[in-house]
C-alpha cells in the first residue's frame, strides 16, 4: 500500500483524467438515452475530431482551446448530417441495423483516416504543455487542469441547455416517451439527428481538450470507448448527472487501481465495476426505471 500522500495525488490524477472521460461518456449516454443505440462509431468520430484539432493547429496555427467553438460546431454538423444521410435513413426501424451501420461507419472512418492522414502519431506541442501546478505529491499538468475545468463547464452548459431550452426539453421528452413525443407533434427524426449531433459535439469538445496532452493516430479514439461505456453504465444509461459522476469515479478507480494493483491489473478494476454495477444495480447510480 503506497503512502497517503501518493494516494491523494492518485486521486487528483484520477479526477483530472475523469474530466475527459466525462465528455466522451456524456455524448455516448445522450445518444443511448435518446436513440437507444450503442454508437459503435464513437471512438472513430472522436479520432476524426482529434485530427481536426491537430490540423487546425498545424495548418492554421489555431490553439486547441481556441478551436473549441469551431470543432464543437463542426462535430455537431458532422453528427447531424451523418444521422440524417445514413443512420436515420437506412436503419429501417431496427436497432441492430443501426449497430451495423455505426460499425460500418467506424471501419470506413478509421481507414479513410489512415489513407488521408497516414498512420503515424501526431502530437500538438503547445508552450503551456510543460506547465504544472504542484499540489502535495501531485504535479498536475496545466493542460489537464484546463481540460478538467472546461469539461465541467461544458457539461454544465449542456445540462442547462437540456433542462431549459425547448430543444433540450423535447429531447428529454423523446428519451422518455418515444410514441408520446411522436403523438404530440414533435419532429422525432430531426430530434434524433440533433441528439446524435450533440453527442458527437461532445466528442469534438473532448478532442480539443485531449490534444494538448494526448496524441492522435487513426486508431487512437478507441482507447476511450470501453471506459466511456463503463461510465455510462455506472451512471445509468441515458443519465447526464450519472455520466458526470461516473466519469470521476472511474477516473479515480483507474488511478488508485493502477497505484495499488499495478497498472495492468488495475484496468481490471474498471471492468469489474462495470460488471458489478450491471449485476447489482443495472439502472446505474442515477438511472431511472428501465
Amino acid at each position, binding site marked *: 500500500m503506497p503512502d497517503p500522500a501518493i494516494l491523494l495525488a492518485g486521486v487528483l490524477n484520477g479526477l483530472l483524467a475523469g474530466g475527459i472521460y466525462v465528455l466522451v461518456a456524456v455524448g455516448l449516454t445522450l445518444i443511448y438515452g435518446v436513440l437507444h443505440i450503442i454508437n459503435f462509431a464513437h471512438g472513430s468520430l472522436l479520432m476524426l475530431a482529434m485530427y481536426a484539432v491537430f490540423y487546425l493547429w498545424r495548418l492554421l496555427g489555431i490553439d486547441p482551446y481556441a478551436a473549441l467553438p469551431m470543432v464543437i460546431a463542426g462535430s455537431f454538423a458532422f453528427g447531424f448530417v451523418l444521422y440524417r444521410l445514413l443512420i436515420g435513413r437506412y436503419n429501417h426501424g431496427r436497432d441492430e441495423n443501426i449497430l451495423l451501420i455505426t460499425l460500418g461507419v467506424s471501419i470506413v472512418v478509421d481507414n479513410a483516416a489512415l489513407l488521408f492522414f497516414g498512420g503515424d*502519431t501526431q502530437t500538438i506541442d503547445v508552450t503551456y504543455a510543460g506547465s504544472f501546478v504542484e499540489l502535495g505529491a501531485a504535479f498536475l499538468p496545466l493542460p489537464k487542469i484546463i481540460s478538467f475545468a472546461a469539461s465541467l463547464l461544458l457539461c454544465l452548459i449542456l445540462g442547462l441547455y437540456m433542462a431549459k431550452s425547448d430543444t433540450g426539453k423535447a429531447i428529454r421528452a423523446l428519451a422518455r416517451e418515444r410514441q408520446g413525443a411522436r403523438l404530440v407533434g414533435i419532429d422525432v427524426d430531426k430530434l434524433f439527428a440533433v441528439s446524435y449531433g450533440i453527442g458527437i459535439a461532445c466528442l469534438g469538445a473532448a478532442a480539443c481538450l485531449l490534444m494538448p496532452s*494526448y496524441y492522435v493516430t487513426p486508431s487512437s479514439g478507441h482507447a476511450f470507448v470501453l471506459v466511456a461505456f463503463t461510465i455510462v453504465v455506472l451512471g445509468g444509461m441515458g443519465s447526464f448527472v450519472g455520466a458526470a459522476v461516473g466519469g470521476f469515479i472511474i477516473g479515480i478507480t483507474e488511478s488508485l487501481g493502477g*497505484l495499488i494493483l499495478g497498472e495492468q491489473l488495475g484496468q481490471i478494476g474498471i471492468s469489474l465495476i462495470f460488471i458489478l454495477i450491471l449485476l447489482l444495480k443495472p439502472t446505474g447510480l442515477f438511472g431511472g426505471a428501465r
Partner: protein
Amino acid sequence: MTSQGKFPVSRRGFVAGSSALAAGTLGFPAVLRAQPAAVKVGMIHPVTGFVAYNGQQSRLGGTMAVEDVNKAGGIKSMGGAKLEALLGDSQSKVEVGVSEVEKMNEQGVAAYIGCYQSPVGIAASQAAAKYNTPFLIDVGASDLLVSRGLKNVFRLKPGFGVCVDDGIASLGALNKAAGGVAKTAVIVHESGEFGTGTAKLLAGKLPSIDIQAKELIAHDNPTRNFDNIALRIRSLAPDIVMMSNYGNEYMLLARTLYQQKVNVAGFFSILGGGFNYKFVKEMPDVAQYMMDVNHWFNPRSAQAQALKKRVEDGGALFTFEVYLTYTNVMLLADSLERAGTADKEKLTAALASSTFKAELMPYGPTRFVNGQNQGGRPATMQALKGDIEVIAPAEFASAKAVFPKPKLN
C-alpha cells in the same frame, strides 16, 4: 505449383489443371517475357490497423530495396532477373497474415519478408514452412520466432535477448564511467509479448551491473494516461527509468515523465518504440538525453546516409522498420545471387550459409544459427539537441554519451 508431401495423385492432377484456370480468372498474369522470370518476394506487413504506421514504414523500405536491386541490374547470376514485390496486408490479424502467405504461394513467391507483429510472424512463417519457402523476419521481437526449429525462418536483426544483453553492457559501462551513480531502476513495459519478455530479462540481468530493479510496471496498449505511473516512479525514486514499449506509449510516457519532472540520472529504453527522428525533432526538450538500445543504422555508412536522405526527401521518416526491411531484401538478393536460382531448397541453403555484409547496419558478419543471425546487434543511442547520436558500440559511435544527465531545475 509446389504441392506438399503425400497427396493423392488425382488431386495433384486437378490442381495442376485448375491452377492455370485459377491464374486466368484470378488475374495473376503469368510472366512471359524475353528476360528471365522475375523473382517474386512476398512482403506481408500490417499496413492497416493499430500498427499501420510501422507496417507502412517496412513496406516503404522493402519496395525501395527492390527498386535498388533492380536498378543495379537484378540478380546477375540469374541472368539479371528482376525482383518483384508482392505487397500483402496482414491487417494485424493472424488469419489474414496466413491467408496472404497462401495467396502469395499460389503466385509463386521465392521468399517472404514480414510481419512486424510477432504473433502474425509466428503463424505466417509456420504456414510458409509447409512449402519450404524461406521467411525473413524483418521486424518481430519474439524469440519464439526462431526457437521452433523451422528451417525456413531467418532473422537478421537481433532478438530482444541480445538487445537486453547489449543494453546491459552499455549501461554498465556508462554507469561505471560515471562512478556508479545509478543503483536502482524502475522498468516500465507494455504488457504484451515483447515488453513483458524484455522486462523480465532486464530485471534478471541488472544486478550483474550492480543495479537493482525496484519494480516492474506493466501497462496496457493503449494506455490513456501515464500520470500515475509517473507518480509511482517519483515515489520509488529510482536512479534510472528503463522502458520497453511501442511508439505511442513510449512517446506519451516520455512526455509525461518530463511534464511530471521525474528527476533521474537517465532514461534508458530497450527497443523503445517511439525513439525516432520525429520524436526528437518535435519534442526536443522531452527527448533530450534519453537513451535507447535499438535497431539502428550505421551512421558511418555512406550508403545508409544516402538512403536516409532519400527517405527523408520523400517526406518520410528514416525509422528502423525502413532500413531493416531494406536490409532484408538485400540479404535475400545476396542469397539469390549466390544460389543462382530461386529454387526454395537452394535459396534456403544459401541463406543458411550466408555471410552477407549488412552494409547499412552496425552488424558483424552474418552467421545464422537456427535461423537467428549471430552477428546482429543493436546500437545504443542518445537524443542530443534534437538529433539522435549513436553512443555505442564504439566503432560506430557518432557522439559521446551524457550520463548522468543534468538534473532538472
